[in-house]
């Protein structure tokens, strides 16, 4: 799975996710990537999220929407919200994976509970940074 989130000069957020799905998946199986609110969500009032992981869990927990809802309704930072969703709710249910999250103020986080996640960020004034492992 691959994904991206961005914040432009107008202050608009966007999120996208694309995938080949789960290896050896059976006929007609659909994961979270095309499910708005599970794998992908963006709202200028809170944040933009793209997910990767065990899709069935991301669907059941509406992971991407939950992160943004915690930011919007509870006033959490994107880091606090993502930590709660990935290391609390997702892990509590036995799922694994991660999210990249970008807030309307430019705050961002890349949170995961698997052993690694291919990830990167570039923000105004800084170089592109990438990482793979925890």
């Amino acid at each position, binding site marked *: 799975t*691959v*994904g*991206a*989130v*961005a*914040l*432009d*000069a*107008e*202050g*608009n*957020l*966007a*999120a*996208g*996710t*694309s*995938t*080949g*799905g*789960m*290896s*050896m*998946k059976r*006929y007609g199986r*659909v*994961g*979270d*990537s*095309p499910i708005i609110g599970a*794998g*992908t969500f*963006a*709202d*200028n009032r809170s944040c*933009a999220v*793209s997910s*990767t*992981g065990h899709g069935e869990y991301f669907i059941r927990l509406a992971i991407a929407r939950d992160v943004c809802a915690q930011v919007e309704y509870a006033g959490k930072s994107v880091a606090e919200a993502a930590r709660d969703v990935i290391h609390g709710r997702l892990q509590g249910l036995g799922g*694994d*994976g991660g999210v*990249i*999250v*970008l807030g309307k103020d430019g705050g961002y986080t890349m949170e995961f509970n*698997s*052993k*690694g*996640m*291919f*990830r*990167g*960020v*570039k*923000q*105004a*004034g800084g170089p*592109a940074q*990438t990482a*793979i*492992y925890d």
Partner: protein
Amino acid sequence: MAGPPLTILVHGGAGAMEKGRYTPEEEAAYKAKLTEALEAGYAVLERGGSALDAVETAIVILEDSPLFNAGKGAVFTRDGRNELDASIMDGATLNAGAVAGVTRVRNPIRLARAVMEKSAHVMFAREGAEKFAEEQGLELVSPAYFRTEARWKAYRDALEKEKKGKEGKPDKGAAADADYKYG
């Protein structure tokens, strides 16, 4: 007064990638492609382009790379096919578009965006999604375009492992795809 900083983040999937799994050259290749996607998406933002354009630009680069499980290099279904899903969402309008189970669309993220911007709907699936892609003039490719030897080998190994398991002789040494479990 300056607004929030132009920013783009990308990911290329999560999973069981422990330290030592990849050679330094492989790590460098992954990081180089992630950097290319970041730089291309950021360049869109720097030119005054939209967050949507930046997201699409970055994802197309990752879809076109055989390194990641999306577009070219996608994993195989149990039936030996590559089936692709994608979605995109505009935070300014809450408009969204998604596609599921396409097999001939080179860049599913472009199709998801077309669904969002050029239809009254949010999600199209399978043959219908591909018909819509045709109508929108998006690039279609042979399903063979998505196949890579590494993914095909992982698929064959997984089939073999499953077969041996059914025969009561689980093969503990069979190579498993690192992405077996992950999207």
